[in-house]
């Protein structure tokens, strides 16, 4: 069932796949330019940020166009639709992690023993970035699946409030709260942080199931 849904998404939203493919081509092209480390990192980051958002963009588009209701008319359970979205986030995130590692490996090979342009995306940093993104997907997903784009706005509100207070009361830190918190937790409690975020992702999935169950189409 999930495979059928995935195939359907790929066929239905093939236009949305143009951008990740473009990013992939750019990354591969940039690897050739061994001295352009920062540009390469920038491209990978764009990929990291954009590509896992795709499933959410797809879902939002279907919700606004009414094709989500068409999907629910098919013999598909709501659980399957929620599972598909989470699976897609993980797949795309995994794809970007794999690409980052591949890029690093190729860059290392090309640079041999010289300065490595891709050094910033070493394994632990890529993994850390993946975990952080996982957190930011896990947190708004139930609201998003229930309320569509309105859910994203609602989920953004507390983050904006927290960041505003943080800038106001701790200007000396000079960085966003979640960036500071992520850095602090990663260095102090790397293990529990990883497990915590994975647990949050799992909890988010369970809450999403419940939230999507009561959605009207």
């Amino acid at each position, binding site marked *: 069932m999930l495979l059928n849904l995935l195939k359907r998404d790929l066929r*239905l939203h093939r*236009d949305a796949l143009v951008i990740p493919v473009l990013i992939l081509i750019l990354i591969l092209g940039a690897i050739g330019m061994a001295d352009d480390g920062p540009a390469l990192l920038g491209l990978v980051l764009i990929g990291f940020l954009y590509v896992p958002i795709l499933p959410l963009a797809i879902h939002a588009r279907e919700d606004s166009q009414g*094709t989500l*209701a068409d999907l629910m008319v098919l013999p*598909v359970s709501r659980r*399957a639709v929620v599972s598909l979205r989470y699976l897609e986030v993980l797949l795309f995130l995994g794809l970007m992690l794999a690409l980052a590692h591949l890029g690093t490996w190729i860059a290392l090979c090309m640079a041999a023993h010289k300065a490595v342009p891709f050094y910033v995306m070493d394994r632990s940093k890529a993994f850390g970035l993946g975990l952080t993104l996982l957190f930011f997907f896990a947190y708004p997903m139930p609201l998003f699946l229930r309320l569509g784009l309105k859910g994203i706005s609602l989920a953004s509100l507390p983050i904006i409030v927290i960041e505003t207070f943080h800038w106001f009361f701790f200007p000396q830190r000079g960085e966003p709260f979640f960036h500071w918190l992520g850095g602090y937790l990663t260095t102090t409690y790397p293990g529990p942080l990883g497990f915590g975020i994975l647990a949050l992702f799992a909890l988010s999935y369970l809450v999403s199931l419940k939230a999507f169950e009561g959605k009207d189409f």
Partner: protein
Amino acid sequence: MTNLLEIRNLTKRYGFFALQDVDLEVASGTITGLVGANGAGKSTLMKLVLGLLPPDSGEIQLFGQNALREGPSLRRRIGFVQESPTLFGNLRVGELGQVVAPFYPTWNSASFQRLCRTFELPLRTPFHKLSQGSRMKTALALALSHDADLLLLDEPTSGLDPLMRREVLDLMLEIIQDEGKAVLFSTHITTDLERVADHVAILKQGRLVLAGAKDELLESWVLVKGGDELLASPLRERCRGGERTELGLTLLCEASETIAKMLPEGALQERPSLEDLVYFHGRELALDIGQQARGQMEVSCSR
């Protein structure tokens, strides 16, 4: 005949609208027409059956099983056409069949191709570029290509030209030649009901005000025409609706053997058409006698 769909005390409230205490049965081998004004709850009822809306209370049995619990697997046996099909707009008609097919074990590609040819659908044209009529035909072709036992058609003839409308209605008749299948369709067009429906259900403001076999319903009601003296007669107690025109009063009353004796002198009775039944049941009947409004007056007929 077995009931493919049974609805008991179904209630759904959202916003200002409420579908209340709806009871409906759709038996195999029959076509049931659901009729009512815009906003009466026809589409809501179909969405509830499909599980697109969770009900507040009540029970829906599909093929003898609880639709709320077993919904996704039961939907394999349902073909659904919505009022304004959106489907998956950027796909071509031919691709739509390929997208939908894997979800139905009973999908018949040959049947889909045949229906596309019958409906003269351009397989290579994107769905969103089709006319309203062609969109409806595409949705019908998809709904009919997996050998569904129950067809739920939400205004399937809207936007179709008279020729195609006739074809769609004939198609419904053809479907129920297999006595294991049934059709529930909603419409505003009473001639469609007259042509194909075995059973009729009239929804008014979220309530089912009349339901039953079409022929029995037509025999159960009578139109009485006359002057104001009708209101003073015992007929008024048997009246469901009425209107005043320049020619006099027309009342829709429950038929009985004694009704002829109740008729005042000069009053006439005649058999109502299906349109009359829908018209008089669908109207607001709460106005007071004597209240004039826009040259026409509806008559209070308390039962």
